[in-house]
């Protein structure tokens, strides 16, 4: 087993990884930028090291400094968390080359899945359902036009290297295609340095369903149920839950089987998430694979009882999966609300000093956060400051628990999205499970 893990991240996920390491008896090294000196994650670790100024490109994303930090502290593995270097195939490769274990999939896995068009192609070639779309990269507007006509409007143009909604354009008719294609290409180029785009059918009111999978070095792959992440604002998830109100046992097994096959096809290792789109007629289509631990992983932990971060670590160490498919039983229901330091109506960031912080507690309530009273929310990074997770015997109980936990949560000094979450949790459509990826937009407008 690893003796010392360097955690190449900050905030709640860094703390989450440090906690898992402590429980496994592994020493930890925290890295931090100058803006994060004294942040909770640095105090929780056994060692800490400043790796650069506030800008993440010069600190948390600074590969030479991060690797030097591992070298001089004698860390034998690096956990990248999510964001930053977590889906950087080059970083994973360099780690491997200098003998520091990258806790995640192989660099080949990351590189392959990073090319969304190629990933779709491979999955499709195995006979698995992918969203109807162009087989690969669209070389020209003409190609795009032909593909769109074949698939049928509306379609969506996406950047191959994309994510987070950047480089995407919805096209409703042939008239709109030319301009949209050029705009998407330009945005892909400027955002990702790669103007490669592809095209898919655009679904109205689809659900975002993702399947957590885990794979060991022997090639065993297990799925751990799905997560419904349909509640998004500008492709940023706000509320997640498992099981999905739209997925029954039969559909769960089907989607799970597809996810496992897709991962086997690419010789996937460690943890990953296969994203699907579920349409109103319960057809599901492969979208992409996230090759990192995800923000919303705790809800899967709550219903399976399995610590996914520990599993990542033991899998990276070459150990077999600690469970087999029949061991995975989904107990009850779990919800997660992402609490962001943002104005709950205008969504403008609200960094600053937290003058009072008091997290909810009691049965079925979990808080993953690196905040506390008198902590400073620095403006340089992601605005998510806490994940509030509840678990109940059923969806009703998980929701009731979330409402009372949101009521208990005190964060003063900055604005947060807690009031928005309270509104969502009392919305009749949400309570009935009638949501899709367009739900929040309508909810906010209404």
């Amino acid at each position, binding site marked *: 087993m690893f003796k010392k893990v360097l955690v190449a991240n900050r905030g709640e996920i860094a703390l989450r990884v440090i906690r898992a390491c402590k429980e496994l008896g592994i020493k930890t090294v925290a890295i931090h930028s100058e*803006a994060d000196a004294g942040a909770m994650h640095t105090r929780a670790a056994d060692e800490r090291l400043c790796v650069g*100024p506030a800008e993440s490109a010069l*600190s948390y994303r600074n590969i030479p*400094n991060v690797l030097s*930090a591992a070298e001089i502290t004698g860390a034998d593995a690096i956990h990248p968390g999510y964001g930053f270097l977590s889906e950087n195939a080059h970083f994973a490769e360099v780690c491997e080359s200098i003998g520091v274990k990258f806790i995640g999939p192989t660099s080949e896995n990351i590189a392959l899945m990073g090319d969304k068009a190629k990933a779709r192609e491979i999955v499709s070639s195995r006979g698995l359902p992918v969203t109807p779309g162009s087989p690969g990269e669209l070389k020209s507007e003409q190609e795009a036009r032909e593909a769109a006509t074949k698939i049928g409007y509306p379609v969506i143009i996406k950047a191959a290297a994309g994510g987070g909604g950047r480089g995407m354009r919805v096209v409703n008719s042939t008239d709109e295609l030319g301009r949209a294609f050029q705009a998407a290409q330009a945005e892909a180029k400027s955002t990702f340095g790669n103007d490669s785009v592809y095209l898919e059918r655009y679904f109205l009111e689809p659900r975002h369903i993702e399947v957590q999978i885990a794979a060991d070095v022997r090639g065993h792959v297990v799925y751990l149920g799905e997560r419904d992440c349909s509640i998004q604002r500008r492709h940023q998830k706000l509320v997640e839950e498992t099981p999905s109100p739209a997925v029954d046992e039969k559909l769960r097994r089907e989607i799970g089987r597809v996810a496992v096959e897709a991962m086997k096809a690419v010789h996937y290792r460690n943890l990953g998430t296969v994203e699907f789109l579920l349409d109103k007629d319960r057809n599901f289509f492969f979208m992409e694979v996230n090759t990192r631990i995800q923000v919303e992983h705790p809800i899967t932990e709550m219903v399976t009882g399995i610590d996914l971060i520990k599993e990542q670590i033991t899998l990276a160490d070459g150990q077999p999966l600690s469970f087999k498919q029949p061991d995975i039983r989904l107990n009850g229901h779990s919800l997660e609300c992402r609490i962001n330091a943002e104005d709950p109506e205008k969504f403008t960031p609200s960094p600053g000093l937290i003058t009072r912080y008091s997290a909810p507690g009691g049965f079925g309530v979990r808080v993953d956060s690196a905040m506390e009273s008198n902590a400073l929310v620095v*403006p340089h990074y992601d605005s998510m400051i806490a994940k509030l997770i509840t678990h109940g015997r059923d969806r009703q109980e998980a929701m009731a628990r979330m409402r009372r936990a949101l009521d208990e949560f005190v964060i003063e000094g900055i604005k947060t999205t807690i009031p928005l979450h309270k509104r969502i949790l009392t919305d009749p459509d949400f309570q009935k499970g009638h949501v899709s990826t367009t739900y929040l937009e309508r909810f906010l407008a209404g």
Partner: protein
Amino acid sequence: MSRKKPRKARIPGTPIVLPGSFGTKSAQDAAAQTRQIQELIDLLKRNHLTELEIERAGIRIRVRHEIGIKTVSASVSEAGQASAPAVTPQAVPASDLLEVAAGHITITSPIVGTFYRSPSPDADPYVEEGDYVKKGQVLCIVEAMKLMNEIESEVDGRITKILVESTKPVEYGQALFLIDPKATP
């Protein structure tokens, strides 16, 4: 801003310059500011932070407590009359930072790595305490990823203190040397 350069050989150290005053406009302002800084320092200590930064109405105050070195340093920079932007992702330019100490300049490590006082194990150290150095003179090496990065002095002066032992790891921004820029041979 030299401190933002990516790793390469011969990166000069980042001096921290001591200013004449806090740059406030009147004695009253100064007193109010002192109180404010004291409050920040208290907040800092009370919460075991190492750094706290506040920016409001063109004034930026940053208080920092180097846990290793056990000194409290405070810096203030004034951005003029215009109200400062709410979000300032840029770091403060090095020359605006002030060291509240004995009038010395601190040479810090611009990268994470291993500190070496000499070019090779059997060579003499680049500098010793008490040596007079010239701007541009190599003071040490910080090795990172098998690359030797020479750290140069940015000022003329006398090495009053070498703060790190040879072969020890150093983090980004760690103080390596104290230089008295007013000293002359």
